[in-house]
């Protein structure tokens, strides 16, 4: 079974790569009509990825949250799922896949550099709160990643509009097919809001789990501290958007900054600091 899930994983990674190339091609060459191929590649890749995760789950007896191989794969899976659901609802932002799919492919690719050895779930990690904790971490990352995709589209379209106004570029139908700037602005805002909500639940579930395992709900462990930093950064982003009139390009760039902080808190902290969380992941 381990070979089948691995083959499916490789196939899913390849399809994500293909989807990424198609999305980038569509954006660079303004080929909106080819975007269906990119979406279909992502969907087939996701199906294979899902089967691969399910097979490994059955084999190892626990969810994908122990080794870095599993963790990165799971982040990629959630990101693609959220993106496909969102682009199904808001068809005009399909092209945002040019951000989400390459990052998902990157996560899959990096995960392949880690050991696939089966690790027994430590007793401390046998908790439903852990499941809630990791699921909401993934949802938070996926939401912010989609917000970043829309933010980049916003920046691209806004730049094009300015250049058209200045007479440097002609109007192109490709940009017309993107949502209105105001709509994109609201979409960014709503995805960041969802991200903050998911991150809050992640921190809450993590606090309850930590209290059950270590006897305290908060201990200023580097991962905990960075998750709070990420929460604050998202909070500042929404605060600026709601109260300080930060809209459009400024908030789009801020959202890109948000994902850097969030990605560091989720993936980077383990490489820089040692602590209770990182001990589990690197074991």
């Amino acid at each position, binding site marked *: 079974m381990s070979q089948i899930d691995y083959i499916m994983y490789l196939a899913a990674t390849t399809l994500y790569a293909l989807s990424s190339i198609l999305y980038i091609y569509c954006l660079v060459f303004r080929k909106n009509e080819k975007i269906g191929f990119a979406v279909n590649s992502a969907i087939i890749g996701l199906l294979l990825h899902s089967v691969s995760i399910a097979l490994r789950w059955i084999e190892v007896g626990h969810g994908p949250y122990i080794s870095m191989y599993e963790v990165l794969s799971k982040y990629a899976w959630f990101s693609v799922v959220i993106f496909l659901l969102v682009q199904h609802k808001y068809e005009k932002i399909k092209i945002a896949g040019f951000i989400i799919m390459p990052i998902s492919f990157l996560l899959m690719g990096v995960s392949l550099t880690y050991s696939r050895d089966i690790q*027994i779930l*430590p*007793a*401390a990690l*046998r*908790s439903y709160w852990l499941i809630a904790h990791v699921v909401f971490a993934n949802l938070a990352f996926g939401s912010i990643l989609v917000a970043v995709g829309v933010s980049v589209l916003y920046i691209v379209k806004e730049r094009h509009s300015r250049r058209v106004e200045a007479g440097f570029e002609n109007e192109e139908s490709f940009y017309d097919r993107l949502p*209105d700037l*105001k*709509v994109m*602005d*609201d*979409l960014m*805002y*709503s995805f960041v*809001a*969802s991200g*903050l*909500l998911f991150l*809050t*639940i992640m*921190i*809450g579930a993590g*606090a*309850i*789990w930590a*209290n*059950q*395992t*270590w*006897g*305290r*709900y*908060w*201990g*200023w*462990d*580097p991962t905990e*501290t*960075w998750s*709070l*930093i990420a929460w*604050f*950064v998202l*909070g*500042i982003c929404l*605060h*600026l958007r*709601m*109260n*300080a009139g930060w809209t459009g390009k400024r908030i789009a760039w801020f959202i890109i900054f948000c994902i850097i902080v969030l990605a560091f808190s989720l993936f980077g*902290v383990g490489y820089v*600091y040692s*602590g209770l969380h990182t001990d589990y992941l690197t074991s």
Partner: protein
Amino acid sequence: MDTISDFSPGKKISSFFQSRKLAVILISSIILVSIIGTHIPQKSQLKPEVYNAWKTNHPTQAEIFDFLGFTNMFSSAVFIGLCSLLFLNTSFCTRNMLVSALRKLKRNQQFQNKDQINGLETRSEISTAKEDKIVISHIDSVLQSHGYRLSLEGNKIFAEKNRYGVFGVPLFHICILFIILATVYGSLGRMEGDMRLIEGQSLQEDHGNYMFINEGPLFYENHQKFDIKLDKFYPDYIDSTDTPRGAAGKLIISENGNEMKTDIVYSNNLVTYRDYTFLGNVYGMAPLLVLMNPDGTIYSGSYITASDPDSSGRYVASFDMADTGLEGGLMVYMTAPLTGIEESGNTKQTPIMFMKIFDQGEEIYDGTLRLNDTVKIPWNNMYLGFYDIKYWSNFYVVKDNGTLLVYAGLGLITLSLTIIFFVIPKRVWVEVVKDGADGATEIYIGGRADKFRSLYNEEFSDIIDKIKERLSNVTD
């Protein structure tokens, strides 16, 4: 120019603390300080030997950071000061937000005429030949099907939904204040300690029975003095669902001789009693060593708690032998877990102990003992017996009355965020005017959402489409 009578310190302080810019500055500062705190080794985070090694390797840095309180960053004056300022800032802002939310709640109950509706960003105009009463009843029905609550005044309609969504933002800020207060309350009255119990041993919940103890200033040594017994220890516990749970200890809690609670503590399965929480911690083996006089009478005896610092399965301890002045060191290991002995009765699983005894630093004995062995030691013709071995376990005991309040705060903060971003107040204003020369009825309809206004257009368009559809289908 301000005169002296205009100067009001209260107003100045209030306007300073209710500044939203101040909130951003304070949060940014807390972020910065937190980042520094994760970079500088923290005393509370690291094992003492790791922290001391860093201190030895970086003496100047350690001295400076220690002086600034940065090696305990999250309880330093800087951090607590910033959090206190943020608390004040949030308190002032919350008061304003509550006032503003209440004002919004009242202000929105207004009807608007067609001119006001035409000033709205999201609006539409429908012309129909239907009677105005019929028109109004259809608009009512469409808006109600979209979840709006309606008020009517003549030919004007005011519809709104998610009215109480305006309280989302103040509730969120109240939750933050609540969590900060709960944390402070919890930590001031908090008690945490390590209690070491040998299998079968019972200790009273009291200050002196903890190996280490931290008590908050409001705990007032208010120990409950119930008895805690480690009835049985399981190094590899498997629960009723056949799930391996790691180390576990069966605790019996009794008061005045009455058994009050029995439960097994293992990872993610705490035992709580009278607001105390018991968590499994480190464990080890405790061989019983008995020192005997030459005539066979007992001189002294005790269980020596040996631990396994490098997780090698070898438990080591050093100890003093009663008042003899002798010192000893032992290493004991099991060829199988103790539970195995009881279940199989296999003698191969007997523990083996290596022991050395020193008299004023000079080694006087080096030997190997098996269970129930007695050896003569070269000191006053005395004997040493190894007659029993048990597990011991440390239990981390915590009492934090703020925990449930913090959980409640986290739950409410999640609820408030849901309200803020997903229960968005939306309003629709309608005026139906019979002003066409041909007797047509004009419907002026406008709407507004407090957030995500461009996304609201989709819902508004749907409302308009439904109204048009109804009006075109209806027969007079």
